[in-house]
Every structure is written in C-alpha cells, then in structure tokens.
C-alpha cells in the first residue's frame, strides 16, 4: 500500500533539488520512446493536475510535478517515487493538455523504467504472474467456472498459455512474473 504519509515525506524531500542529482540527458532519453516525444513541450500550466480526479483526493499526487521532474532529469527520485503508481489512467489529462503531451504515456514509460530497475508494486507482480500462468489478469476460481455453466453461460474459453509464455520470453519479462512479493 502507498501511504499518503510516506509519499508526503517523499514530497518534502523532493522540494530540495541538488544539481548533482539531475541527469540532463534523461529527457532526451525518454523522449525517444514513441508517444513521449512531446514531454519537452510541457510548460507547467498545471491543467493535468487541476483536472485529475486522483489529485482531487490526494495530497501528493501531481502529474504536473511528474512532468517537471522528468524534464529536469530527476530520474532516481522519479523511479523510486511511490506516487508514480497512483495514476488511474483515466486519460483526462491526455485529452486536456494544451501542449498535446501524452502525460499518461510518460507515467507509463517511467513505470516501465522503474520495473527494469526492480521497483514494482506487488499488485503488478501478481497481475503479470496471473497472465503468464493463466492468460487472464485474474485467477478465476473453479467455483465461478462451474457457476457459469449453472447459469447457462458458455464455458470460459481457455487461453493459449504456451503462446503467452513465448511472448513473455521474447520480450524478457517472465522474470517479473516470478518475482517474490514483498
């Protein structure tokens, strides 16, 4: 669980910016990812945070801040920041950004980078593992499968797990699915 208190402490820390911590090449590196090209165009108007339904109920979640930290190259802090995982991907900010920045795609790319460094919330390990082992994001209990038939619904098709595991192998993410939970 991401606690507000923990993130608040993290945010306080984030107010201090040390030049030595900034990676000037980070925005170049990340803007090479398709869909993220426009990150440099963000002029910090804050429309994303103002219209964000999550930000309305969180003291700490701010897409605007995530965009600024990305531009400044605060890579380490960003990738270890728990607030990175608070975006619900409703895509309101994407539709509202006057500069056409795909904010949700930036957050997604940052999450992908964090995962590569081994930082991933348990719930995502579980989802990945469920898909690898069953083809479905959730493990559907036997009882539900039986109930489907009782209710006159057709049997749930079985996923081709062999195909899914081959695809996970070629992009080398099978290891994430097998990660131990914290």
């Amino acid at each position, binding site marked *: 669980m991401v606690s507000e208190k923990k993130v608040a402490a993290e945010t306080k820390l984030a107010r201090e910016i040390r030049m030595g911590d900034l990676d000037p090449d980070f925005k170049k590196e990340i803007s090479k990812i398709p869909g993220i090209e426009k990150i440099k165009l963000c002029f910090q108007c804050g429309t994303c945070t103002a219209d964000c339904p999550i930000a309305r109920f969180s003291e700490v979640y701010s897409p605007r801040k995530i965009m600024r930290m990305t531009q400044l190259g605060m890579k380490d802090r960003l990738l270890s920041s728990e607030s990175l995982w*608070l975006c619900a991907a409703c895509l309101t900010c994407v539709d509202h950004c006057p500069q056409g920045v795909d904010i949700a795609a930036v957050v997604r790319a940052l999450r992908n980078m964090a995962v590569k460094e081994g930082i991933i919330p348990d719930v995502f390990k579980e989802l990945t593992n469920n898909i690898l082992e069953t083809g479905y994001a959730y493990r559907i209990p036997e009882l539900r499968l039986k*109930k489907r038939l009782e209710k006159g619904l057709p049997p749930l098709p079985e996923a081709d797990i062999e195909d899914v595991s*081959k695809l996970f192998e070629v992009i080398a993410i099978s290891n994430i699915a097998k990660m131990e939970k914290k």
Partner: protein
Amino acid sequence: MAELKYLLFLGCVIPYRIASYETSSRKVLKKLGVELVEMLEFNCCGLPIDGVNHDAMLLLAARNLCLAEQQGLNILTLCPGCAGTLRKVNKSLQEDKRLKERVNGYLKEIGMEFKGGKIAVRHLIQALVEDVGLEKIRGSIVKPLTGLRVAEHNGCHVLRPAKYIGFDDPENPVLLKRLIEATGAECLDYMYETDCCGAPIIGVNDKIPLYLAGDKLRNIKAVNAQALITVCPFCHMMFDINQPRIERLLSEKFGMPVLHYPQLLGLAMGFTPEEMALEELRVDATNLLNNNLKAQSKTGSSKIILGN
C-alpha cells in the same frame, strides 16, 4: 438491416466477478438480433500490465487482434478497458509501419502476423448506438421504465483518449444518456459526472478510489437518482461491490443500486429481474423496481416522479 455478428471478447474482470453483466448483455443482444461468436483462446487485453512493460501490452493486444483477423469478425467487448486497448493498438499498428514490423517480429514466435485494416473493435454501447441504432432499441421496449430516475457513469476508456476512440464527446458525453432514455427512464446530470471511479489504483492505494467513488455516489444521491447505470465491469465493482466499504469509510449510507446498462435495457424489454441477474448485485436493486411499479400503479399515471 444486415445481420450483426461479432466475436465476443470477454476480458478478465467479467468472468472473474461480474457475471451479471455478461448474462444481461448476452440476452439483450440476442433479442436485438445480434449474433455473438465465442472468441476462443483469447488472452488478457494487455492493459493491466502496460505499466509493467509496454511491449507486453502491445503483444497481448496484438495476439487478440490476430485471432479476430483469422476469423474475419469484428470484436465486441463489454469492458471499456479492453475496448480502448484493442482499438488503440489496432489503430497504432495500422498507422505506424515501424511499430507493426517490430510487433510482427515478435508475433512470428507464435506463428501469427498482424495484417491490419481487416477488423474493427467495438464497445457494447458503441455497437448499440452505431450498429444496432437507437431506433431499433426504442422499438424493442415493451415495458417502459417511465418514472425511474437514474444517473450514468461512462467508463473512461469508452471515451478517452478522444484521438483514438472517436466516440461521443468525452467532455459532455450524451450517448449513454440517449440509450438510457430509450428505456423510458430519465437520466439525470450530477456534479463531477465525467470523473473516473478510481478503480485502477485499488491495490496500490485503496483510500483515494474509495473517497473518489464515495464523492460520486454522494453527488448522485444529491440529485435524487434511484440508481446508477454503468457500462464497465471495473466501475461496477467500484460502485457496487465496494459500496459497503465506501459507506464504512465515509460513515455515510448510500444504498445506491448499481445496474449494468443491459440490465436496465433488459427490464424495459420485458425480461424478468431474475433473467437479468439482478439478485447478483451487491446493493439490493429489487426494491428499486418494486417501489417504481408500486408507485406507478398507485398513481395510475405513466409519468410519475418519485421523491426521495
């Protein structure tokens, strides 16, 4: 009208917890003359792990699209997350040759190839509005729900991002309202209507979505809506299954029945509450109908307003 036939992409959340959405959708679509073909060997659309690895999402989605291409049938999904993901990937792979090449390079491993331009992906309400048509839906109503006042919650991915979805106006969505009005029920506006339910971050942080959904329920109650209508299994889970949790957290009682749109439509088409699996809902919806019917017979009028 030509016969409508789709490949049904069920997704994961519906078979996991929301069978009532599937049951009601299948019956309603059948009555409207829509044929559903079971999509065999499908896998998760990919959206849940886009944050883990974007390529994994692309490949899972592309594999599903290839299955549909092989069958030569358009996909119908009940889940906006699946619809949005499959639509977006279908479009990006067609538009971006380099991306398509890369994805096809991976798909070779499983003997598949995405061709592109062969099939389309539709969410339930998009199919109802654009393919079946409001006229036909109105014509199917035998028990108009006159006097019933409800609110709607569109799933985000039914509408956003506008650039990829191109359905309705995400800032002022009206098509689900038109579908609701076709049943004879009234659809009310409420504050923060287009806001997300917050469900996708359950498991990372539960409090924010519970407060967010609670705020929406409060606003819905404030306009005296008798029920909330959803078209997304995730949103439904948030408002229905999680409603007792929300009530405990906020020390507030909502008692707001949450119906899937096809349940509402089915009732107006003359299906019984049992046939529409109303008893499977967490928040009791049987009173809603009883009260409404009682009120109708009491006043003997077809146009009645129920106070709250």
